[in-house]
């Protein structure tokens, strides 16, 4: 197999290296062995099946009207809104978090660090604070959705443009500034919240906890094409992301334009996070939970396989959690709380046992 003839310099020990059977050509797959590739596809199929079963359950189970009634379909249609928004949220968070972690070569951070959620909370709190409950209740619909999304994308573009290009050109500085801006915005909205009347606060609270019931079907014609485009572009960028995950120096050595590439990936991440946050509200640890589990499940570095796995896990978790809590425990509102709790615990576990990253 060796192209080199022996007899030069050092002795080559591979001749007596044992009867390692290597049938046919040696090649570089995304997986270590055929067995791991099989395990990947089986796991992916199982997760997709789980996601489909949970979504069907959410759509059809416990329908108050009988199947043959004419109002059966409208009920399903109304429930479909929630399922579609779960689909979008899972897609956004899984792709955004995996790409973000690879670009920053860091697996214990999430794009939420860049302050999207803080900004979302400031926009909503200040609407209520400055304009009162009547305006706040009407501050839904396509206009406000687009406004929130545009603001979040604009802020992240300013942040990237300022700190990633030109004389700073430093990813870690950008993260740090992002965290500080996020904390600052959170304190601002926290301050305004303290001055609200309890009834107003109650109105606000329901919107500040991520929930698929926040989503309105009229957002979908805008959200779906944007998300589809960003996801497609990120997936097409997989091979570059594989190299970028090796870090700045290695990527440069392999001829990748580092600054331009991370800027491109981060803009797509910003778009996905903004759509998801303005659609259903903040989900801080969800993306982290999904990314962490997908690395364990996929057992490969290759983004072409990590992305689908992350999405399948994210969708199965969201739909599964909603189905269980809604239909079995009758408490739909706490879904994101439960997901955040599990995600937060996992985050701490990983942080404390960093070796298993």
């Amino acid at each position, binding site marked *: 197999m060796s192209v080199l003839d022996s007899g030069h310099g050092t002795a080559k020990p591979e001749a007596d290296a044992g009867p390692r059977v290597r049938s046919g050509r040696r090649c570089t797959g995304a997986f270590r062995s055929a067995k791991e590739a099989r395990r990947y596809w089986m796991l992916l199929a199982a997760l997709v099946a789980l996601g489909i079963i949970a979504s069907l359950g959410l759509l059809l189970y416990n329908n108050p009207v009988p199947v043959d009634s004419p109002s059966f379909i409208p009920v399903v249609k109304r429930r479909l809104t929630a399922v579609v928004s779960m689909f979008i949220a899972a897609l956004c968070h899984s792709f955004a978090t995996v790409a973000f972690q690879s670009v920053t070569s860091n697996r214990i951070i999430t794009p939420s660090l860049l302050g999207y959620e803080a900004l979302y909370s400031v926009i909503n709190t200040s609407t209520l604070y400055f304009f009162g409950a009547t305006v706040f209740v009407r501050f839904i619909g396509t206009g406000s959705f687009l406004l929130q999304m545009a603001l979040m994308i604009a802020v992240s573009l300013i942040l990237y443009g300022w700190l990633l290009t030109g004389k700073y050109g430093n990813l870690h500085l950008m993260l740090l500034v992002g965290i500080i801006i996020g904390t600052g915005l959170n304190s601002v909205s926290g301050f305004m919240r303290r001055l609200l009347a309890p009834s107003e606060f109650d109105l606000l609270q329901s919107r500040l906890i991520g929930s698929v019931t926040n989503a309105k079907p009229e957002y979908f014609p805008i959200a779906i094409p944007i998300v589809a485009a960003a996801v497609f572009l990120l997936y097409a960028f997989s091979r570059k992301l594989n190299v970028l995950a090796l870090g700045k120096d290695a990527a440069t050595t392999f*001829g990748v334009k580092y600054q331009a590439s991370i800027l491109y990936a981060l803009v797509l991440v910003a778009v996905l996070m903004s759509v998801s946050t303005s659609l259903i509200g903040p989900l801080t640890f969800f993306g982290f939970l999904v990314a962490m589990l997908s690395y364990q499940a996929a057992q490969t570095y290759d983004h072409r396989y990590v992305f689908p796995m992350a999405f399948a896990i994210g969708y199965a978790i969201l739909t599964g959690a909603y189905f269980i809590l809604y239909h079995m425990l009758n408490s739909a509102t706490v879904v994101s709380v439960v997901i955040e709790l599990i995600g937060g615990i996992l985050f701490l576990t990983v942080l404390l046992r960093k070796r298993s990253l």
Partner: protein
Amino acid sequence: MIQIRNARKWYAEEVKIGPLNIEIPKAGITALIGPNGAGKSTTLLMIGRLLNIDEGQILVANMDVTTTKSRDLAKMLTILRQENHFVTRLTVRQLVGFGRFPHSQGRLTREDEEIISKYIDFLELTDLEHRFLDELSGGQRQRAYVAMVLCQETEYVLLDEPLNNLDIARAVQMMEHLRRAANEFGRTIVVVLHDINFAAKYADRICAMKHGQIAAFGTVQDIMKPELLSDIFETKIEIIEGPYGPIAVY
């Protein structure tokens, strides 16, 4: 040929590297030696375009490293740093395969696979090729990284202290591999070394640096002089003739 013309780097008012002027000829191994903080790594990183040059110009095979397209440069020049951020769930073979990225943009052809196998065998990693990087010892991992940069098949290979953290046997083995890469594949290797005796035995040329300047550049015989080395390292160094050439004793 690597041409460095008046290249400078300012870290601070007191810490300045350069102006550097040197022409490193093609083929063979050139060792960069010198005390800590002399600017060896800085010089190497500037040639490898991982560090911006504040003033001056560096040409590798007549390509200006600051203005040439990174992708074209990646087919001519590669550099390996001391510490490498390593990704989990990455096997040796997958890592070495990244060396083909400048040529195939991540879509490995049959030809690429053969080249990958060649360098895995060359660095004696054949039986480890499907191990994850975190399952290797330090020396094995270092060999995997060297296999990766050789797999890039560039004329110029820059290595920043590849012997760092290797024991004597591993260090000798690594230098033997580099020597063979230079001889058999005709690569031009520039390597930062801390041990003068390794430089004396394996390099063709030695470039000695001190206080951010090039103090001396020449063949092993030219540089292995007691006065010269004592002055550069500010320690008394004697040279004795050993069985494999001059040996520095300090």
